[in-house]
């Protein structure tokens, strides 16, 4: 016990000696290794940034969304996307307490893939696109709280084929093509709460049931824009700042 107290009293002094250095080169190698170990999962994190997985606001029948920024990418240019939401059932319409049911989905296709194939003699074919679809159920549990849960199926395709004359090496190994993809079924659960007039705040968890992919999203959204922090605790870049544009009718 005396030792505990001693340690405690000395913590202030130790704080100055809590020396630690960052080995950025080693960290960079680790990040590169994680990307190469599963490039599709890394790319899918950017797809999740532009997926619309919050329910339509009460009273709205359909909505559109496109990603402006995700992680470190201007997704509006690199991964232009269109997402949609359609309300099949308004909360309590058919029977009291029956949740709101929204269909959700979206598609993106990168123009960089075609540009790379057109402008490079070494690249013969490229594909870099993805889509998702699913549904969300949402139910008000108080005037200021709405819970939602649902399901989404997501798929990403990334392929690049090199010409036989190209001398492409990855970590010293010759490669002819890189063909990777990601596909999983996700369980979605979250909670939404108003912050003001036409302003909402939500927190949600997306869990991939086959790959155990974890994504949590904290979002603030209004009439036109959604600002978010997407956190991929097992991802390469753990925190993705997100900016999306949406219109709901």
């Amino acid at each position, binding site marked *: 016990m005396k030792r505990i107290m001693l340690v405690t009293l000395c913590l202030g002094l130790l704080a100055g000696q809590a020396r*630690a250095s960052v080995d950025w080169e080693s960290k960079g190698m680790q990040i590169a290794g994680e990307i190469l170990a599963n490039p599709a999962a890394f790319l899918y994190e950017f797809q999740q940034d532009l997926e619309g997985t919050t329910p339509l606001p009460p009273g709205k029948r359909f909505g559109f969304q496109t990603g402006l920024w995700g992680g470190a990418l201007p997704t509006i240019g690199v991964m232009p996307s269109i997402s949609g939401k359609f309300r099949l059932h308004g909360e309590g319409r058919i029977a009291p307490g029956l949740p709101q049911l929204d269909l959700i989905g979206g598609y993106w296709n990168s123009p960089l893939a075609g540009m790379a194939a057109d402008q490079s003699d070494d690249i013969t074919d490229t594909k870099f696109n993805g889509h998702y679809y699913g549904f969300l159920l949402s139910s008000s549990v108080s005037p200021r709280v709405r*819970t939602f849960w649902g399901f989404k199926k997501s798929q990403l395709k990334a392929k690049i084929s090199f010409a036989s004359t190209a001398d492409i090496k990855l970590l010293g190994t010759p490669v002819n093509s890189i063909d990777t993809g990601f596909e999983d079924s996700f369980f979605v659960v979250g909670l939404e709460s108003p*912050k003001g007039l036409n302003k909402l705040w939500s*927190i949600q968890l997306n869990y991939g049931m086959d790959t155990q992919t*974890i994504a949590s999203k904290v979002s603030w959204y209004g009439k036109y824009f959604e600002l978010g922090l997407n956190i991929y*605790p097992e991802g390469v870049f753990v*925190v993705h700042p997100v900016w999306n544009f949406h219109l709901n009718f």
Partner: protein
Amino acid sequence: MKKLTLILAITAGLAGRLSAATAESSKIFTPFFDMTLAENGYLPSEGNIFSGGHINTQVGLLAKITEKDQVFGLYNFNYGGPGFAPQDTRQFTDRSLTHGFNFEYRRSLGRHWRVRPGISFSKDYTRSGANETWDQGIYNTESKGFQVAVDYNFDAERNGFLTAQFLTRDIEFPNYTDLFQEFMNASATSELSGGQQDQRLTQVSLRPNWNKFFGGITLTTQKYKNQRVVSASGAYADEKQKDTSTAFDFGFHHSLWIFELYPTLSYTVRDSNQNYMRYKSLTDTSPYFMEDNYSFKELSFSVPVDLNITSKWAIGGAMSVVKRDYASRLRRDVNNNYIAGEKQENTMTTLTGSIRKRINDVAMVRLSYSLVVASSNNEFEQYMPYNYTGNSFGIAYQLSY
């Protein structure tokens, strides 16, 4: 050990939540939702910078069948990412993932008594790096079991009740392989995975709760179905492994003026009959036998204080200490030699400062900085750091309904 800790933590968490969701309601269905999301950056004095998160999500539904009968179902998702941890528990880079399902029937018996039988299932994944697959974690477990709890409400006005609970879990480790046996039996050509860690866990607890004061005593026994203890000869003896732990804990959550205090204190005595044979290398011909390697006494306390400056903003400070003294295990020098007469002691102290903002009735966000000082008289740190300091910065969201 880390699996047991996780299972018990979830069990305790479920118990707490089940009690927390007992408020009477006129509704037939009452949903329950609680989500905590934290992400931290870590800078240790030993090793490189890393990040880690923690996510805990609970989704439940309470169905009121009659005035006296209720059914409660709860799904719990827990993710624990890389982070600092007390010595001898886990590596910095370890991470775990748990899905837990709990179903409970509640029957009120008169004004004061209530009985709560239930069943529980859980699946746990572990891995030590993002480049491993969750499905192949050596400490992955599948657990199933039942519990029965009896509540005696002695002070309805101040939420005073006494809860006695018995629970049992059958825990299987489908991927566990016995490295020691493989090493001893060099002719073995495949992994030995005959359920060596499979065990039955039983737990009895008695927990009083009154006016936001809580505490209790918890007795836990783990009986291994196949794992036998290592004998001094280096071979397995006939005796099977059995671990018991007795834990006392106490805490409260009270406010005094602008101060909000929620300290906790616990003391655990763990007794295991398992021993340890230390081989310094694959060619070590004179291994050292450490009897009673896993028995210890552990004291831990945490004293968090929040100063509620306004209704929205608070400044927080916390100090927590975990101190473990082994009953027999000797400390080791830097060359992995046991030092006669000097038992191993570990201490980990954490000081935290934070700023908390209440977003609305159900949500809050907290920014925090922590300084960790881990010290031990064990100087052999080839596989796990025992003496280090560390800094961590983090952000946490909590949303509860």
